[in-house]
């Protein structure tokens, strides 16, 4: 791992980072009520009497939220607490209708686990660091306040009130903005593989409380600040960068760090103290008397375990070991669950179309996906999620290369046409006459003309300038409009040049 240091006037400072990530659990209904969790609905249209904390309303736990949190815990190798319970965290705020948040302080559902991160994209196997996860607890989200719709009032929308969250609390194991960024990306990847959170940071499905402190190398932990609700990887890193430097400045000018809650301002890239929350530190946690202990049996946990998909690290290893992909390619293909899913469909279809084993076509498929297709999608402003070309259609294109119907360079043209028209590769090749030729007579005729037209170069080649061979190949292919079979061209050229 990189050694990230702040160069202060008094020497080098180390940064200590812990993250509390709030991840919205994927569920149809809220944690304790039957209201929908769909994003973007009309204000207060997805609010039950329970969510609005009407007198006499009571919480009833959504089992799916618990199942997803358990699956998430298992995915990070964490211990599952078969006996857990919910506590109330009491404070007053307009987005908190009950006057308390139902959360888990004393007995969380998920205990210690870990997440492995790497900072080396070229080789994710190298430079691995294990980041401890302290716990995952399940809790309710709050509502939303809108401050800019009325001159003297704030507006309250409770649609999010009661939506299930997992709070994933890391140990203070990170030491640089890059490590924190890698941790959030990896966590997001795992959550999306597991399907317990959609990871959509723009919609607030995932947000991080960033705990930062600084210390001289080898010193005791310093006082930390907590910057709340940072909602992108970039902002998490910027928060740390800013906070660490700010704290060093404060300490070096003789000040002390206040343990406080701060807010990140994306416009300025700075953080500021959130005074509005400062007096609320005595949360008077106690077990929620409306809820009983949550007791899970082995069958529940084992069913959750059995439902887990292959996770990113395991998949990456398999791509390397069974499919023979490079660590880099395996890393790229497994970082996002959609990419891996797309790749695997491509692989299966390509192998089938080409009549070969998956491991025989894996490299070709991987190379094409990474070096051709990602670029092509990028040029038309698309990604795999909304790709106009299905993995199946792409497999057809790859199979045409494998069986020699078209060359690699023609395949590029075909791909462009596919993106333009949405037509299948086979259709385009037939319609545009792009099939490559192995007709030796036709190729020989072209070669003869090229050698005559470039007599000087033929002389030089024969005089020992063998590098010119590539020039003749290029000229031939150009004259054949890319449709000549490159293998046949090579063979015939060698013969013609003696």
């Amino acid at each position: 791992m990189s050694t990230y240091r702040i160069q202060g006037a008094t020497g080098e400072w180390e940064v200590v980072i812990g993250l509390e990530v709030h991840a919205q659990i994927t569920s149809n209904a809220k944690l304790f009520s039957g209201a929908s969790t769909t994003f973007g609905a009309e204000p207060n249209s997805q609010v039950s009497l329970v969510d609005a904390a009407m007198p006499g309303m009571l919480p009833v736990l959504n089992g799916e939220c618990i199942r997803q949190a358990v699956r998430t815990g298992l995915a990070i190798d964490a211990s599952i607490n078969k006996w857990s319970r919910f506590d109330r965290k009491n404070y007053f705020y307009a987005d908190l209708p009950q006057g308390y948040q139902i959360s888990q302080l004393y007995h969380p559902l998920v205990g210690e686990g870990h997440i492995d991160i790497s900072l080396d994209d070229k080789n994710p196997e190298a430079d691995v660091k294990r980041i401890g996860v302290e716990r995952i607890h399940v809790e309710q989200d709050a509502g939303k306040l809108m401050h800019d719709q009325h001159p003297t009032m704030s507006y309250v929308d409770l649609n999010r009130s009661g939506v299930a969250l997992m709070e994933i609390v890391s140990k203070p194991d990170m030491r640089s903005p890059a490590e924190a960024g890698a941790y959030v990306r990896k966590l997001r990847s795992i959550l999306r593989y597991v399907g317990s959170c959609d990871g959509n940071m723009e919609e607030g499905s995932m947000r991080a409380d960033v705990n930062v402190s600084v210390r001289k190398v080898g010193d005791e932990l310093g006082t930390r600040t907590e910057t709340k609700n940072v909602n992108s990887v970039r902002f998490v890193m910027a928060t740390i960068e800013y906070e660490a430097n700010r704290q060093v400045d404060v300490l070096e000018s003789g000040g002390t760090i206040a343990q406080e809650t701060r807010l990140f301002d994306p416009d300025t890239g700075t953080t500021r103290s959130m005074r509005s929350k400062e007096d609320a530190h005595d949360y008077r946690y106690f077990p929620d008397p409306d809820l009983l202990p949550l007791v899970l049996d082995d069958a529940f946990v084992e069913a959750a375990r059995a439902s887990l998909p292959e996770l990113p690290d395991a998949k990456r290893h398999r791509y390397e070991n069974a499919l023979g992909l490079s660590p880099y390619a395996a890393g790229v293909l497994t970082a996002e669950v959609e990419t891996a899913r797309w790749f695997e469909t491509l692989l299966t279809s390509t192998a089938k179309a080409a009549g070969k084993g998956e491991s025989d076509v894996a490299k070709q498929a991987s190379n094409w996906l990474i070096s051709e297709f990602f670029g092509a999608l990028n040029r038309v402003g698309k990604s795999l999620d909304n790709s106009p070309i299905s993995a199946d259609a792409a497999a057809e294109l790859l199979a045409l290369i494998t069986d020699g119907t078209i060359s690699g360079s023609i395949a590029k043209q075909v791909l462009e046409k596919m993106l333009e028209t949405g037509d299948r590769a086979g259709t385009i090749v037939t319609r545009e006459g792009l099939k490559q030729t192995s007709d030796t007579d036709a190729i020989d005729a072209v070669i003869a003309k090229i050698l005559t037209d470039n007599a000087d170069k033929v002389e030089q080649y024969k005089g020992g300038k063998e590098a010119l061979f590539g020039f003749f190949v290029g000229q031939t292919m150009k004259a054949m409009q890319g449709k000549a079979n490159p293998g046949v061209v090579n063979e015939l050229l060698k013969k013609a040049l003696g």
Partner: protein
Amino acid sequence: MSVDTATVAKIAALARIKLTEAEVAGMVPELNGILAWVEQLGEVDVTGVEPMTAVIANTLRLREDVVNADPLTGGGMRDAVLANAPAAEHGFFGVPKVIE
């Protein structure tokens, strides 16, 4: 443990109950009387005793993840939710402007 006026003022603030100085002063002996009385619990030997977690031994039932399965605990009832609001505008609850 006993409380003084500062402590009573602090817990009143925490509980969001505005008290006059006179009310705080009046509350001090009342709360101290009650606290002194409840503190006799300290005499009880509770070694090895777990705090009660369920009055009738029972554990949580898990609900199915179904939206609006019971209309009484489902959403889609904005008018009912806003019906008693002291200030409701444009489908929102209104509160004095909050500066975060």
